[in-house]
């Protein structure tokens, strides 16, 4: 797993239960806003329909082989924003390889299941799944 993401997972796991929510809120609050080109033209964004609130993601490979990740979630959905913040801080700027090899269940080690229902936690996996598929399509040209 990419060290930046591993470090976040470890931080959560090492925090007492009460602090994990605050940590997730920090990630929600620090989620970068959409860049101008996506805010103006949202066609590059894909909606993650598994999430109950309107939530959009885009994985954009750059010429340097690094993939920029963008997320758009409303402030009324801080948990979803928190998931996005974790993925943004942990994986934005990673190589396609690093994103594709991130374990789909990486978040289980964060110790969130005590505070968030397992059903809701799956949202994190769904977001990562979307990002991986976009990387597949946009890097490998695999349209499957």
């Amino acid at each position, binding site marked *: 797993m990419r060290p930046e993401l591993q470090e976040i997972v470890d931080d959560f796991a090492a925090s007492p239960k009460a602090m994990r*929510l*605050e940590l*997730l*809120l920090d990630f*929600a609050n620090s989620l970068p806003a959409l860049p101008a080109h996506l805010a103006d033209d949202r066609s590059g964004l894909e909606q993650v*329909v*598994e999430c*109950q609130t309107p939530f959009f993601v885009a994985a954009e490979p750059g010429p340097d082989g690094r993939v920029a990740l963008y997320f758009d979630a409303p*402030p*009324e*959905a*801080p*948990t*979803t924003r*928190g998931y996005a913040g974790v993925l943004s801080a942990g994986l934005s700027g990673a190589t396609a390889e690093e994103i594709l090899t991130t374990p789909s269940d990486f978040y289980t080690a964060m110790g969130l299941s*005590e*505070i*968030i*229902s397992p*059903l*809701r936690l*799956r*949202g994190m*996996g*769904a977001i990562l*799944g979307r990002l991986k598929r976009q990387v597949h399509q946009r890097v490998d040209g695999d349209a499957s």
Partner: protein
Amino acid sequence: MAPSTETDPDPKLAAYHRPDRLVTTAWLAERLDDPAIVVAESDEDVLLYETGHIPGAVKIDWHADLNDPVARDYVDADGFAALMAAKGVTRDTTLVFYGDNFNWWAAYAMWVCKLFGHEDVRLLDGGRKKWIDEGRPLTTEVPAPAPAEYPRVERDDVAIRAFKEDVLAHIGTAGRLVDVRSLGEYSGELTHMPDYPQEGAIRGGHVPGAVNVPWRRAVNEEDGTFKPADELRAIYLEEQGLRPGDDVIAYCRIGERSSHTWFVLTQLLGLENVRNYDGSWVEWGNAVRVPIERPGHPVRPPIGGGR
């Protein structure tokens, strides 16, 4: 006996079966300092309370606080008493729940409190959204209530809670089954989309004989409040033919939306025998050999003998 908190005299509420089970935002705003009242936020989104809540409100989370951490069940008598005590709630406290998503989880929390027989539980009509839309104050300051004394009360799982076995026994009787999910879930379409794991159920469809009355029909979309009594009566009593004495079981996916309908049927319309099947579709849609109804498919009776 402790003096009871007055009923919100709002005329819309007066037309409901139990006008004392709802409060308006204006009523609550004037009583945030009333020591007889504890305001509690219960949300779908576990972080929402932390982003700002009604001043003085405590947080009660359906997953972390009301569910048993191991078994798929609610907390027991000790757990509930400890939770209430920690939130500053006594047996005489007026508990006012509010939350996001049209008060789904607020209604669920109220229903769980009713399993333990807490008498004075109310919902804030319009919930979190209406409070915010009206520009009323929010704070991120988390209250630290002095621990209260709350008695140990055994949970009553009979009167208002139904289990899978109860639903099985209900099929084919005069009892009514109300599926409050969306039409797509009721008809079984939603679990058939590939790669959409949010349903958590293997099979799609509904319990045979259940009618579909989505929870959403009970609310005003613009402000999240409950529809007035006459409109609710038109839907549930006239259109659906529910009668006050009917034996009714309501279900959804995990029991929160059906708590919302349970509230409407029992507290707002006065139906006497309504149980919430909290196992709901996540249990039924995964259970072995239970009958399922889906448009275009005959209900298959159990075969092969056995018990």
